[in-house]
C-alpha cells in the first residue's frame, strides 16, 4: 500500500468567493452562489436557461495577482493557479524557500471542458500564437507547476465531471508509491459560455428555475429539475504523512482510499441502479481497509438532475445498509464539472478537520427515489471517515476516503 497520505493545504475559487474561508462560511451559512448569467447574454445565444453559479471575482485580481496572467492563461487555468497558490501557502510552503525540493513535488490538475470558452472565442479567426496554450486541458497543471516550481509527475485527467477526483486519486498514488513527497492536486473548469451552457441546455440537463436562481440547484430534492452550471477550482496539497510530520505541519485529514470505475453503459445516463458508482465506492472503501458501516459522512456527487440523483441514491443504498448522513454542496455552488470533485475534496477535508458537516441547500421535500438521510443544517459532529463521490459523462466514476488525523 505504501506511504500514508495527508492533506496539508487547501485552496478554493468558487461562486462563493476566491478563498477557502469565503466558500466555507458561505456553505455553513447556506448562501447560494447562483444568479442570473452575467458572462454573456443567454437570450442572444438562444439559450433557455438564465441561471449559473459564476465566480464573482476576476481571478487575475486575486492576490498574489502576479501569478495569474490572463494574457496567456485560459480562465480555467487562472482559477487553478489562484487556488493552487492559496493551497500551497496554506500548507506552509513557499516555493522560493531553499528547502522546497521541486523534483519531489508533483502536479495533478483535472478539467472536464478546460479551454472550451477560449476555443469558442477563437473560432472562425486566425488563431493568435498564444491561443493553443490558453485552451489545452493540461495547461492548468502546466501553469500550476510553473507557478509553484513543481518538477515531479505532472498530469491532467480529462474525465469530465470526475476529473478533479481522478486527479487527486492519482496524486495520492504518486505519494503512496514514493514518486513524489508532495503533490498539488485538484480540478478546474470555466464553462459558463454560450457553448458551455448551450450544450447542457440542448440536452435538457439544466434547471429551468430562472425566476428563482437561489432555489434552482436542488440536490436529492423531490422538485429538482436539472443542474445549475458552476465554475471554479479546488486544489489540495497532498503530502506523505512522515514528510508532513518532519516539518511539523498539521494535516486537515488523511486520504486513505481511492477508487475509479467505468460504467460501460451509456454516454450520459449512469448505469441502472448506479452499479458503476456502487462498485467504485466499494473499491475505494476496500482500498482504505474500511467497512461501509464505519463511514460517518458521504459528500455525494448529486448533479441535481432527476435521473442522476436517483441512480446515485440507489448506489449509496446498495453500499450502505444504513446510509450515513449525506450532503451535497451543489445546492450552493452549482455543478463545477471537472472542478467539482476537487472543490468537494477540499470541503470534506475542512469538514473532517473542523468536525462540522456543511448543510445541503434547497433540500426541502424527500423524494422516495432518493431515500437518503440528507443533512440540511450545519451539523457539529466528529467525522472519523468520510467518502466523496464523483461521476461523469462517458460513465466514469471516482471516489475518495478521508479520515480524521
Amino acid at each position: 500500500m505504501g506511504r500514508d497520505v495527508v492533506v496539508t493545504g487547501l485552496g478554493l475559487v468558487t461562486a462563493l468567493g476566491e478563498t477557502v474561508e469565503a466558500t466555507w462560511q458561505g456553505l455553513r451559512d447556506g448562501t447560494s452562489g447562483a444568479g442570473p448569467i452575467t458572462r454573456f447574454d443567454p437570450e442572444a445565444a438562444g439559450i433557455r436557461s438564465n441561471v449559473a453559479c459564476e465566480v464573482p471575482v476576476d481571478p487575475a485580481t486575486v492576490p498574489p495577482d502576479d501569478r495569474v496572467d490572463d494574457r496567456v492563461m485560459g480562465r480555467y487555468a487562472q482559477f487553478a493557479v489562484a487556488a493552487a497558490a492559496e493551497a500551497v501557502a496554506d500548507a506552509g510552503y513557499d516555493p522560493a524557500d531553499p528547502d522546497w525540493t521541486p523534483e519531489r513535488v508533483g502536479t495533478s490538475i483535472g478539467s472536464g471542458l478546460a479551454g472550451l470558452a477560449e476555443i469558442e472565442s477563437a473560432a472562425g479567426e486566425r488563431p493568435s500564437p498564444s491561443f493553443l496554450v490558453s485552451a489545452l486541458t493540461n495547461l492548468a497543471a502546466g501553469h500550476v507547476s510553473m507557478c509553484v516550481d513543481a518538477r515531479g509527475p505532472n498530469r491532467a485527467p480529462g474525465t469530465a465531471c470526475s476529473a478533479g477526483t481522478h486527479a487527486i486519486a492519482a496524486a495520492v498514488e504518486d505519494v503512496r508509491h514514493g514518486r513524489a513527497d508532495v503533490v498539488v492536486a485538484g480540478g478546474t473548469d470555466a464553462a459558463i459560455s454560450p457553448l458551455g451552457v448551450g450544450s447542457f441546455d440542448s440536452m435538457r440537463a439544466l434547471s429551468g428555475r430562472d425566476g428563482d436562481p437561489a432555489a434552482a440547484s436542488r440536490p436529492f430534492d423531490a422538485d429538482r429539475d436539472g443542474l445549475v452550471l458552476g465554475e471554479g477550482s479546488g486544489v489540495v496539497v497532498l503530502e506523505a504523512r512522515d514528510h508532513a510530520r518532519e516539518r511539523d505541519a498539521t494535516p486537515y485529514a488523511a486520504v486513505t482510499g481511492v477508487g475509479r470505475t467505468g460504467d460501460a453503459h451509456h454516454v450520459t445516463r449512469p448505469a441502472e441502479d448506479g452499479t458503476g458508482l456502487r462498485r467504485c465506492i466499494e473499491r475505494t472503501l476496500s482500498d482504505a481497509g474500511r467497512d461501509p458501516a464505519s463511514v460517518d459522512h458521504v459528500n455525494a456527487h448529486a448533479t441535481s438532475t432527476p435521473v442522476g440523483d436517483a441512480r446515485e441514491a440507489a448506489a449509496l443504498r446498495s453500499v450502505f445498509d444504513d446510509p450515513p448522513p449525506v450532503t451535497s454542496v451543489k445546492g450552493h455552488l452549482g455543478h463545477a464539472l471537472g472542478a467539482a470533485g476537487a472543490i468537494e475534496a477540499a470541503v470534506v477535508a475542512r469538514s473532517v478537520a473542523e468536525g462540522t458537516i456543511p448543510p445541503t441547500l434547497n433540500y426541502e421535500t424527500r423524494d422516495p427515489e432518493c431515500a437518503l438521510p440528507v443533512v440540511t443544517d450545519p451539523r457539529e459532529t466528529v467525522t472519523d471517515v468520510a467518502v466523496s463521490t464523483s461521476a461523469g459523462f462517458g460513465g466514469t466514476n471516482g471516489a475518495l476516503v478521508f479520515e480524521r488525523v
Partner: protein
Amino acid sequence: MSDTQEIRGRVQRIVADRLRADPDAVDPETPFGGETLDAESLDMVEIAEAIEADVGVHVPDEALETVSTVGDLTDYVADRA
C-alpha cells in the same frame, strides 16, 4: 397537401433523419422503441430539439415520455403547430 399533413411529413423526416432510419420504413405506427428506430432518451431529446428548430413547437420532457409511436409524436406536434 394541408398544412397539418406537411407538418406531419416534416416531423416524420426529422425522426428518420435523426435516427438514421430508412424514411420509407417509418410510418405513424412505427414504435420508437422497436427494431426500426431503437430510440433512447438522448435520441428523443435530439428529435425534440430539431422539431423545435424546424417547426417551432416545443415538445417538453413530459410529452416525450408519453409518445410511444411516430404517430403519437406527429399528432402532438400537429395539434400545436
